[in-house]
């Protein structure tokens, strides 16, 4: 134990700006992930297993028109993988609330929006990682690009925008849930979105009443955008529309999700 501290003089009235605080908080989120090897390893193994099961166990029974099933499946797998990876944010936010970390941040002289922005930034960076893993696993089981490289990169960018939008949904759930367990439960809400979609099976194979939902919901639109961007004309023929159709809809859905959940999260966070 040292003797009397020499206080470091800090000019009164100073505080970190929005950018600096956001980066600081985002860095913490990334370190938390990178230094918890279980998260990294378990996440990777889970997604690989999931793909292998669909590819080889169900794959034989599912017809995908003019596309190889693997080329049909992997865009769905990558898109839904984003949502499964993003689910963790809900429990993470609830845990930060419960364990007082958010209290500490909220007692600091930083813009309140920095806490949520930092969180969303870190989580979106993790989505890049998740996308890289799921794409690599996809290629390993036989997925191939049949369109241009520029289109494939556009798909990657579009997926990030989409994942970012859903991050805000999960952050909002985490803020409202109360406990990490409840947050985890609420995050399971994405299961209907991921399974009642074109991600794993063609929408036409579902009962009529379900098709109405499945066809228009954001996951289907996003998956189909990735299909057309990575598979080119064969996917267009199968799905019925060109890339522009799906991309604009995927962007519109992302914007709508952000328009709902960003204000909700911010309002909830401000209220405390």
């Amino acid at each position, binding site marked *: *134990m*040292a*003797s*009397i*501290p*020499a*206080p*470091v*003089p*800090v000019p*009164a*009235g*100073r*505080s*970190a700006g929005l950018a*600096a*605080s956001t980066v*600081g*908080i985002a*860095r*913490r989120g990334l*370190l*938390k992930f990178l*230094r*918890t090897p279980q998260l990294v390893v378990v996440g990777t193994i889970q997604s690989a297993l999931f793909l292998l099961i669909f590819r080889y166990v169900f794959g034989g029974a599912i017809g995908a028109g003019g596309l190889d099933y693997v080329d049909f499946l992997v865009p769905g797998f990558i898109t839904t993988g984003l949502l499964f990876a993003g689910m963790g944010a809900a429990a993470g936010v609830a845990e930060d*609330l*419960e*364990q*007082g*970390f*958010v*209290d*500490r*941040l*909220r*007692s*600091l*002289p*930083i813009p309140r929006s920095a806490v949520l922005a930092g969180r969303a930034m870190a989580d979106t960076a993790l989505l890049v990682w998740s996308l890289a893993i799921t794409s690599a696993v996809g290629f390993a089981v036989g997925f191939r690009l049949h369109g241009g490289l520029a289109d494939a990169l556009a798909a990657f960018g579009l997926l990030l925008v989409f994942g970012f939008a859903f991050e805000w949904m999960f952050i909002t759930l985490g803020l409202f849930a*109360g*406990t990490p367990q409840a947050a985890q439960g609420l995050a399971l809400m994405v299961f209907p979105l991921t399974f009642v979609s074109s991600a794993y099976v063609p929408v036409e194979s579902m009962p009529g009443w379900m098709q109405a939902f499945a066809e228009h919901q954001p996951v289907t639109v996003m998956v189909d955008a990735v299909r057309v961007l990575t598979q080119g004309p064969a996917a267009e023929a199968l799905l019925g529309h060109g890339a522009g159709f799906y991309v604009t809809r995927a962007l519109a859905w992302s914007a709508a999700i952000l328009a709902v959940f960003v204000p909700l999260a911010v309002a909830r966070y401000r209220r*405390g």
Partner: protein
Amino acid sequence: MTPTIEATGLRKRFGRTVALDGLDLVAEPGQVLAVLGPNGAGKTTFVRTVATLLRPDAGELAVAGHDVRREPGAVRRVIGLAGQYAAVEPAMTGRENLHLVARLFGQDGRTARASSARVLDLLGLTGAADRLARTYSGGMRRKLDLGASLVGAPRLLLLDEPTTGLDPRSRIELWDAIGALVAAGTDVLLTTQYLDEADHLASRIVIIDHGRVVAAGTPGELKQRAGRNVIEVHTRDRAALARAAAGLAGPGQDQPQVEEATRRVRVAVAAGTDPLRDALGALDAAGIAVEDISLRPPTLDEVFLALTGQGLEQPTETAAGHPAA
């Protein structure tokens, strides 16, 4: 001079629970104020209100002259908070934790490194500074949390039960660290359930219960009114209890209390060790077999009894966490 904290008629309720029920309190600069109270008294609610984490429903609250509702930003520049549950990031090292908070206080990289190193040194954590906080013991975590609250060199430290759950040695180390800060001119608001902690650290104690102040004063004043030591005797035979009580009436300052179930007799005594010697003499003279005898400071329960004329109700909850809703 502007008070560090000035609360008038502060009210806060959660649903049907009234957590603060017209709390009045003033902390002057240069003071360590201890808020003492049992579980559920409203200590954490008060600290969170001062820290601008909760908005009061009614009443006034100013911190260093800034109203918590109208100028929360100004309040946040003045305070450093160590909440009831250590809020450090387990996946970062002690140094990284402090550095992050220092940067968020607006310090540049170099200043942040310097103040983190200084705080680590102050808390005796330099040796463990570069280990992940998840490898820390509970006491080390608590210290790191305290460090995070003071790395921004705040004028007012808010410490919510800083030593709850620590072993006696860590407790004293933390007291020393807090004492050093106070000597360097930091004002402190701390909450505690222990009279001896308040006595050791604070220049002024406010006792609260059910969200209201039930007594306030310097430790000396409160002890004069309530803080008499207690002699407690555990007899071998139940039959001897009445005679033990009679024997203790001499050295005691009030009526000895007999607790049949646990075969104990308790009596408040004057300061010093003389009463203990007298008590032993009296018990010996009466030929009473004693299992054990102790001289101790009064418990919070006994302080309440003395100050308010009524004991504590059973705590309505344990110190478990509530959602930070």
